[in-house]
């Protein structure tokens, strides 16, 4: 490769950690060679297409596929009847928790369609044209039912009911009639009345946000090929091919080992590719047709049938003393779950005030089903909208008590040993350091002009560990292959290679990091929860250490000395006496057959010790008082990364989270018409930021090492999206004096607010 790494000094005490090598998968990605989900065509392959509901809520009275089946070119048709009905229950754990019954009904509707875009049949044909013609020939008789989208309306006693068997969990006494409220979650600590009694200043507001989509550029795509032996090979992009294997098998009524999933490169996920949609459908179609079947969603299908995350209504009340100490928070949050239970409302409750020390807390959350697609994880699920509310109120409180908003945050900052808002005691965290980083950044003191304003906000995210596997092979030439089961969305292969190079003591370009299929590496959880560099990294480090132990043992064998006399330094075995010529991995690999066979080791973990992440951000805006247009002038984000393995990709995660948050703040939203049909299922009117909308996004990587990782890594993928909405709202307030409490803060809403204020 003609390209070289940007020179950056490694972290003190390290040779590779903290440097910025060119990512190993980069060359394929800049030359067009990388294969994504839609990039595979097989001989004899059929094209699949999915019939989707035109109604937001309807009973399916009948589906007649006979005409479609008889059409030229059509090789298979499936409906819900082709998939087993699964039992309800909680399956999986942590970020992969789901209800099999809901999943199977979401992938293919049974008696009812619950949102516009809900899949209810699919065909495989010899061309896309024929597949679409066959879809048009499927006759469905619907009884259209009233639908509901707004959470308040969905919670009302007379609301249309989505699920006749949905009884609210978490309330006493247990309700006897169904409702759209799937569950109630409560955080109740301290004495809320006492807390507000101590307060000199109390602010209370209601906030509204709309559903937003993860917006990955690559639509969901799969090629499934079921062979004569009944086994399926599934090629697709996802955030976890083991997840795809498990779900696909379960939805087909198979054992997981009957399905092999080959991970394609993934064109973005942000949480949205942590579940399945078309993968089981393509597999069943392939089984029926006896041919490979490819399904690629259109952009319109991506918007109408995947993602998004919840819109919500939040009411919060915050109290503080006149000297700026938070005394109490209370409030309620109702999140749209989409068609099936499982919004991230509990996470919203837990995260909203997590950066602070507050003794008296009462927060209740409602998980509310509505007639839109089942929500899917989106970067720090549940936290951004809750933090929009909490961080806006904190800005207001700081203003009321006359404190600088960053000083106010420092004054109330949570730290090690302090009880978190959500219960447990905080371990070593770097929140305070992120606030100080912004305070000390030149950005914070740049003078502002007319109609300009500055806002700050902070955010918290848990970060996860979870199950990961890794295998390390020393090749005959002394290089290393590092196999993991973690799809690489944002450069994680480079991080794996850096950690392996550090442990093995070899050049980072002598490490080949590989994302292996479900039959070539041990089970690994999804790439999500900011877990890969931490958890899969732990597995890689562990496997490398086993390899190093083996290499030392082999050197000891060659030298005929005790293994304790062999040290591993800079990729070479050295004898403690120094009187033997060191042996490199290459030397030892060349002789491997004679010292016990190939050198390889595997490791697997259910990683603990993921360190929590905090981010503090500052945003400058200029508001056009005549049009309501908000221009982002400057943006700086400080985030605790624990220890940056590859700083460029840490910065990239920070910048990407901010950009998504700015989109969420200003323009992104699902817009539905009166029938519950999404009106903007495309990039033209679902307005994600384009390059000319944004300034450079300055980053400050704060490093407060995580004691739970040998290098101090903390996950960095998610927390960056938590603060931007409040940072932008607070900046708009600084520019205009207006407190906006609805997202998106589109020009229409800003101008309305200016007008209402007599502007």
């Amino acid at each position, binding site marked *: 490769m*003609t*390209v*070289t*790494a*940007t020179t950056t000094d490694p972290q003190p005490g390290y040779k590779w950690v903290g440097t*910025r090598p*060119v*990512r190993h*998968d*980069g*060359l394929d*990605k*800049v*030359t*067009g*060679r*990388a*294969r*994504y989900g*839609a*990039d595979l*065509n097989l001989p004899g392959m059929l094209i699949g297409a999915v019939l989707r509901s035109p109604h937001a809520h309807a009973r399916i009275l009948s589906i007649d596929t006979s005409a479609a089946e008889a059409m030229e070119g059509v090789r298979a048709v499936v409906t819900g009847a082709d998939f087993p009905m699964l039992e309800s229950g909680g399956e999986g754990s942590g970020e992969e928790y789901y209800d099999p019954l809901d999943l199977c009904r979401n992938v293919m509707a049974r008696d009812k369609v619950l949102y516009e875009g809900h899949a209810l049949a699919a065909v495989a044909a010899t061309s896309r*044209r024929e597949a679409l013609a066959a879809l048009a020939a499927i006759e469905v008789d619907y009884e259209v039912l009233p639908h509901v989208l707004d959470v308040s309306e969905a919670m009302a006693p007379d609301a249309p009911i989505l699920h006749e068997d949905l009884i609210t969990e978490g309330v006493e006494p247990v309700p006897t009639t169904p409702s759209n409220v799937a569950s109630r979650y409560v955080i109740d600590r301290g004495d809320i009345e006492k807390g507000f009694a101590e307060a000199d200043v109390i602010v209370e507001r209601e906030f509204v946000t709309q559903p937003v989509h*993860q*917006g*990955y*550029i*690559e*639509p969901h795509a799969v090629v499934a090929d079921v062979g004569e032996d009944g086994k399926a090979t599934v090629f697709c992009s996802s955030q976890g091919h083991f997840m795809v294997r498990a779900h696909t098998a379960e939805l087909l009524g198979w054992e997981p080992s009957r399905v092999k999933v080959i991970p394609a*490169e*993934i*064109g*973005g996920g*942000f949480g949205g590719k942590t579940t399945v949609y078309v993968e089981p459908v393509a597999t069943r179609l392939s089984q029926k047709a006896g041919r490979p079947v490819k399904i690629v969603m*259109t*952009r319109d299908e991506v918007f109408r049938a995947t993602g998004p995350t919840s819109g919500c209504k939040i009411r919060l009340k915050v109290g503080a003393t006149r000297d700026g100490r938070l005394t109490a928070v209370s409030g309620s949050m109702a999140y749209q779950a989409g068609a099936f239970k499982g919004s991230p409302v509990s996470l919203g409750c837990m995260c909203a005030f997590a950066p602070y020390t507050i003794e008296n807390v009462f927060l209740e959350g409602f998980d509310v089903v509505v007639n839109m697609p089942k929500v899917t994880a989106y970067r720090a699920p549940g936290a951004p909208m809750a933090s929009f509310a909490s961080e806006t109120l904190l800005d207001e409180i700081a203003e009321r008590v006359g404190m600088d908003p960053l000083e106010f945050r420092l004054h109330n900052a949570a730290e090690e040993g302090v009880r978190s808002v959500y219960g447990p005691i905080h371990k070593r965290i770097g929140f305070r350091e992120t606030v100080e980083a912004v305070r000390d950044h030149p950005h914070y003191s740049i003078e502002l002009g007319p109609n300009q304003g500055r806002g700050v906000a902070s955010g918290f995210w848990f970060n996860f560990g979870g199950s990961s596997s890794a295998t390390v092979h020393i090749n005959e030439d002394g290089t290393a292959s590092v196999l993991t089961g973690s799809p690489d969305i*944002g*450069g994680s292969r480079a991080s794996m290679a850096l950690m392996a190079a550090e442990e093995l003591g070899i050049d980072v370009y002598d490490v080949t990091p590989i994302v292996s299929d479900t039959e070539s590496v041990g089970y690994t959880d999804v790439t999500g929860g900011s877990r890969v560099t931490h958890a899969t990294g732990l597995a890689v480090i562990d496997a490398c250490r086993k390899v190093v132990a083996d290499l030392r043992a082999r050197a000891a064998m060659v030298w005929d000395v005790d293994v304790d006399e062999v040290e591993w330094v800079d990729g070479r075995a050295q004898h403690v006496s120094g009187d033997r010529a060191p042996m490199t991995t290459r030397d030892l690999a060349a002789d491997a057959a004679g010292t016990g066979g190939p050198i390889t080791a595997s490791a697997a973990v259910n990683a603990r010790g993921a360190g929590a992440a905090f981010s503090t951000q500052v945003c400058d805006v200029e508001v056009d008082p005549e049009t309501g247009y908000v221009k982002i002038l400057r943006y700086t984000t400080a985030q605790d990364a624990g220890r940056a393995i*590859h700083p*460029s*990709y840490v*910065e*990239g*995660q920070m*910048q*990407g989270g*901010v*950009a*998504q948050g700015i989109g969420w703040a200003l323009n992104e939203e699902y817009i539905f018409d009166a029938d519950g049909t999404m009106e903007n299922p*495309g*990039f*033209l009117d679902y307005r*994600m*930021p*384009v*390059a*000319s909308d*944004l300034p*450079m*996004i300055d980053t400050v990587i704060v490093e407060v090492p995580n004691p739970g990782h040998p290098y101090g890594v903390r996950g960095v993928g998610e927390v960056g999206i938590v603060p931007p909405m409040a940072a932008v709202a607070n900046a708009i307030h600084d520019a205009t004096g207006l407190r906006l409490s609805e997202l998106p803060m589109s020009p229409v809403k800003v101008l309305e607010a200016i007008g209402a204020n007599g502007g």
Partner: protein
Amino acid sequence: MSRKHVTCTINGDPAEFLCEEDQSLLDALRDVVGLMGVKEGCATGDCGACSVILDGRLNCSCLVLAPEAEGATIVTVEGMAGPDGLHPLQETFLEGAALQCGICTPGFLVAGKALLDRNPDPTEEEVRYAVAGNLCRCTGYDKIVRSILDAAARMGEAAPAS
């Protein structure tokens, strides 16, 4: 349905393909010619992932009917690297970590090339507007914009103005 025979030049080589008359150039390049580096993100001209240079101009190949390519000269991401190695944009994208998931990268590289072909020394704002038709959801554009500016500088050094 009868197919249309198209003769054109793709990445410097003479090429022929058969396409449906209503097929997009994007679909023909991917599924007929086999150039999978041309990506589909939306098929409506709103994301730029399918960008190609068609007769010297930047285009969304999803908005071109394949038969229109008769006689045309097409450059895709696969044609950017030459015998001497990578295009400077490819180098600076790699060095500057301008890609995360990489699905938008081919489109940005092609758009970047189209920009630098006509404006070798763009300002940051010119770069931002030149790639405003290309969506990236991962990077926040910061490193992409820097990498295009870096490539311009590198090309300027390699070929100083006479």
